[in-house]
Structure formats: C-alpha cells, structure tokens
C-alpha cells in the first residue's frame, strides 16, 4: 500500500463504493486476470510517453484493490488514455484500456468533478452524435474549432455546401451530418438512448445538454408514437 497524498479527505467508503461499481461491470472479469509486471503494456502505450501514465499501474491498482491509488487514477489518469488498446498485447490477457473504459463510465455515472472537467468543450460532440446519429459532421470543420489545422479548414468551411454537392455518392450531400440519416433511423437511435439509460448518464455530467437533447428527441419520438420507458 502506497501512502497517498491526494484525496486523503475522500472517505475510504466512497472509494470502495466506486471501485465496487467498476468491479461489478460484466466486462471486468475478462479485462483483468492478474499482473506480473512485465511492462509490455507500458512499452506499447502512447499516453505513457507523454503523460505520467501507466497502464501497468492501472492493472496493478485494480488487482491489488488499492483503493487510494484507484481513486487517484479515477480522477487524474483515466482521461489521459488514448483508448488505442495497444495494451491488449498483455501476455496475461489483461485489457487495461478496457478497464479504463469502465472506470470512465463509472466516473460519468457518478458525476465526478474530474469527469466534468474532462468533458469541458466536448458537449457539442455528445450533442452531435446523440441527436443526429453521426458524430462528425462537415460543418464542424470551423477554423475556431481547429485553429491548429491551418487555413485549409477555412477554405473547406467557406466552400462547404458547394463541395458537398460535388460528391458523387448521393448520401453524402449533407453538411450538418456526415451522411443522410433517415428520420425513422434517428427515432430508433433515440429510443436506444432512452432504453439503455444513456440519457441519465448525460444528466449526471451536463444538465443543460441533457435538457436540450430531451427536447430534440421528444418530437420525433412522439411522432413515431414511441413513449420512452
């Protein structure tokens, strides 16, 4: 057990509760077997090269059930992961990246401040994917959103509607979605968000976004005669 400097004020019961939520995920069992500290995951990890981040320590803390370290990682480490899953090279069959996916879900479900911080500036993406069914749309290519991508983004943005019309596939003339998505399809997607509790997750981290999404979805769902459970 490592002496922890950070989050000493958070009661151990709270740390235990969050850890138990992670462990209760159906995938946990196949994502963590045991760790003999070979370091293969770290050598393959892009985030380990740029951050003080180690998939080996994620696996270790989880298998030791080291609650203070787990809680530190839950707040300070998991959002650094690239989710590339290079760490699945693990000879023990562990999936540290997958553990992080679960940890992120738990931190969202519990509305942790660190999760809210990590999602700052990201709300528009959640809005786009949940409300339109395609995550990336042509009209997201705005110079203020991607200043580091160069003046080229401005050129695309200026010519967007015209350039989209110059695409031979007829599903791709859209500008606010990546392709044309049928209303019926969207309705079905909304129903999925409702039925699987994803909207409730959003509520935990961004109440404003939750309200807007609900409004957007309501109309289509009603038209189709669906009443979310």
């Amino acid at each position, binding site marked *: 057990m490592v002496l922890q400097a950070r989050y000493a004020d958070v009661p151990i019961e709270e740390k235990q509760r969050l850890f138990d939520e992670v462990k209760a995920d*159906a*995938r946990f069992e196949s994502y963590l077997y045991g760790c003999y500290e070979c370091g293969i995951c770290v050598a*393959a990890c892009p985030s380990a*090269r*740029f951050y003080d981040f180690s998939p080996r320590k994620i696996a270790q803390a989880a298998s030791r059930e080291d609650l203070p370290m787990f809680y530190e990682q839950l707040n300070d480490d998991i959002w650094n992961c*690239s*989710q*590339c*899953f*290079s760490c*699945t*090279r693990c000879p023990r069959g562990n999936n540290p990246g997958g553990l992080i*996916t679960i940890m992120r*879900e738990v*931190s*969202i479900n519990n509305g942790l401040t660190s999760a809210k911080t990590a*999602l700052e*500036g*990201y709300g528009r*993406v*959640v809005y786009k*994917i949940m409300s339109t*069914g*395609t*995550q*990336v*749309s*042509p009209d*997201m290519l705005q110079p203020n959103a991607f200043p*580091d*991508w*160069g003046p*080229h983004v401005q050129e695309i943005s200026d010519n967007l509607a*015209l*350039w989209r*019309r*110059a*695409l*031979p*596939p007829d*599903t*791709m*003339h859209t500008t606010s*979605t*990546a*392709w*044309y998505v*049928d209303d*019926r399809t*969207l309705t*079905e*997607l909304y*129903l*999925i968000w409702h*039925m*699987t*509790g*994803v909207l409730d*997750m*959003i509520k935990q981290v961004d109440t404003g976004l939750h309200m807007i999404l609900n409004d957007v979805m309501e109309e289509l769902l009603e038209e189709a005669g669906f009443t979310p459970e």
Partner: protein
Amino acid sequence: MPIPLNVLDTRRDSREERGPAVPPTEDVREQVFELEAKGEWLVQRVPDPWIGVTTKYGRIKKIPVAKTWHHKSCGQCGHIPGYSTAIFWLIRKLGLDYNDPKDQTSCTAWNYYASATSNQGAQAAVAMRNFGAAYESGYFPMIHCGTSYGHYKEVREELVHSAQLRDEVRRICDKLGKPFVMPEEIVHYSEWIYAMRDEFAKRRVLDLSSIDVTVHPACHYHKLVVEDAIYDPDVYGGQRTAVVSAVVTALGANVKDYSTWFDCCGFGFRHILVQRDFTRSFATLRKIDVMREEANPDVVLTHDTGCVTTLDQSQFAARAHKPNVGIPVMSEAQFAALAMGAHPYRVCQLHWHSTEYRPLLEKMGIDWRERWREFEDDLERLKKDDKAFLTWEDADA
C-alpha cells in the same frame, strides 16, 4: 548489411516440420452459429461469391465480393469524403452491386472511447440496430471505419458471452421492430480491398514503381479482437497484419518499413477533439518524423478514419518548427483508385486533405493542374445550378 536469406528461410521452413499450431483462441463464429441453432438470433450469411482470406491464427475468413451494405464512417464521410467515395468508386469500377444505406447510424464508438457517455447495452444496441437494417436490405455489412469494425467485434464477443446482454438488446430490437441478427463475419472494407487487390492490379493504369509508401496499421483493426485480422506469411513474415501492405505491393509500389509501425497515430478519441497537443506531438514525433527519417516515403497509407485525420491534419502546426514533416496521407482505397485512373478531386476529393499531396500526384504521373481545372469547372456548373450534384457519370467523364 548482407541479409542471409538462407538463415531466415530455414527458420520459416522449420514451421512445416513442427506441424500445425492450434489457435490459442476460441472461434467466436462457431458460437454465433450455435446461438442461431438455439433460436437466440439469426445469422446473416456471407453472400456468394466470397473470397477466403487467412486470419492471425490460420483460420479462414469469408470476404463477400459483392452485395455489400456499406456501414459508413462519420469521420470519413464528414471530413475525408474522398475516402468513402473511393471505396464506392472501386466497387463500381468492378461492376459490383452494393447498397449505400440511409438507415444507418454511426457506431457511436468514437464518442464512447472519447467520453464514456454511453454503456455496454447502448453500444450493443446501436450495433445490432445497424446489423438488423443491413439484414432487412438483403445486403451484407461492410464496415468502413476501423473503430466501428473493432468495436463491433468486441460487441459480438460480449453478446456471445452474456445471455443477459443478449436479452437486453433483443428487447430493444423488438421494440424498434428490427430483426435480431448477427452477421456471419464482421468485415472491414480494407479486408475487401485486400481480397480484391489482384483485380485492382489488373486495372492499374499508372506506373507506381517509383512510389515509396509507409503503412500505418490501424490500432482498432489489428489490436481489438486480434485473431480476426488478416495476416499473410508473405507480408512481414506473417507478424503484422497484411491489409494495406499487400495492396501496395500488388499495385507495384514499394512498402517501406519504419520502426514505430506498431505505435498508434495519436488520435486518442478525446485528444483529437479537446486535447490536440498530445495528438500533434505523437503523430509528428512518433510517426511522421520517424517515417521521414527512416523511410522517406512519398505517401503514408492507412485504413482507418482516425488515422488518416490525425496523421494528415497534425502536420500543419508542426511545420512551424519542423521542416521534416509534409508527407501526404490518404487511405489505401484512394491510392488504389488513383492507380486505376480515378479523378483526384471528383473521386478522391484530395482538396479536403491538409498536407501537400501535389508532388505525389506528379510523381504518380497525374496532371493535377488539369484535373483541378476540370473540378473547378464542375464547381462552376454546380454554382450556376446547371445541376444539383456531381454524379458518378461526371466522376468518370
């Protein structure tokens, strides 16, 4: 350094004496069929004709030739539209039947891996909704995005191993009125390109023998559910996935190795959107720089949405302090299409790409000035509303 080929040949030959190796993983497809036999779901069969390709542990995977339902990629269609267009163009060039659906959503996995604002049930339901739509159309799913492909394979494993998850998702599909159906194979478009590479080679019109290529294999293609990715003993001794590389070779260009091939591109899912300092650093320092130093390629080819975006767009800012960057990036689908005479703007839509690609086109023997002029004429006609959209007929005019 002299390469003692006999040493390596002897090593490879000993493989035969040792006898066949038993795959270390179960074949999830067998369980997919078992669940069908138990009445749990339908299995959509790969339509005839199909091509058998070899996966990591020597199993055969069926790749449909035609009758494909195109599970498009949001990042491709949204920001690299020449990527998707090139895939369709290749299919049309071979005269094959396909379906470009509107009853399709993103896999939503980009968001899931970025923000975790979703869960296992929702992700599986989105996948099965799309699979259901494909089944209803009578066409077989072909997945354009590496992340969708990897994620759907994870979803397949999870559904196969959890009756509870199957029940949850089946209940949702029932409510939506969609059939509960799992495809016999989960197929990435780059597997189709790999399977059809000789057909493309036959139709090649450009000499690519002077074109050097570095290949970036997409993480979510070969690191998620690894046993299902294509490997070929003739490509890097069977120790790396053969997709893309084998296509480059078939088209007569040269695959060049570099030491960070296994590294990811730096996309990071959330990083590309809200923490791009990481993405830019990784893409340039660990990938583009290394490629330039060790292989000096004319182009970087990859087979996934995020990788093309990251490797291409990250080079602009790096130019400020790194004269070394500036390698064009595209998908192998666009590259193959160019090799077969596709229009660089009408089909491959290279004007959406960031890093300077014109020297590459010149080296490939493409008159980009003339092609751009043609495309500008197209745009003029569209502007004047002579026509609403550029058509496939226009693309090959």
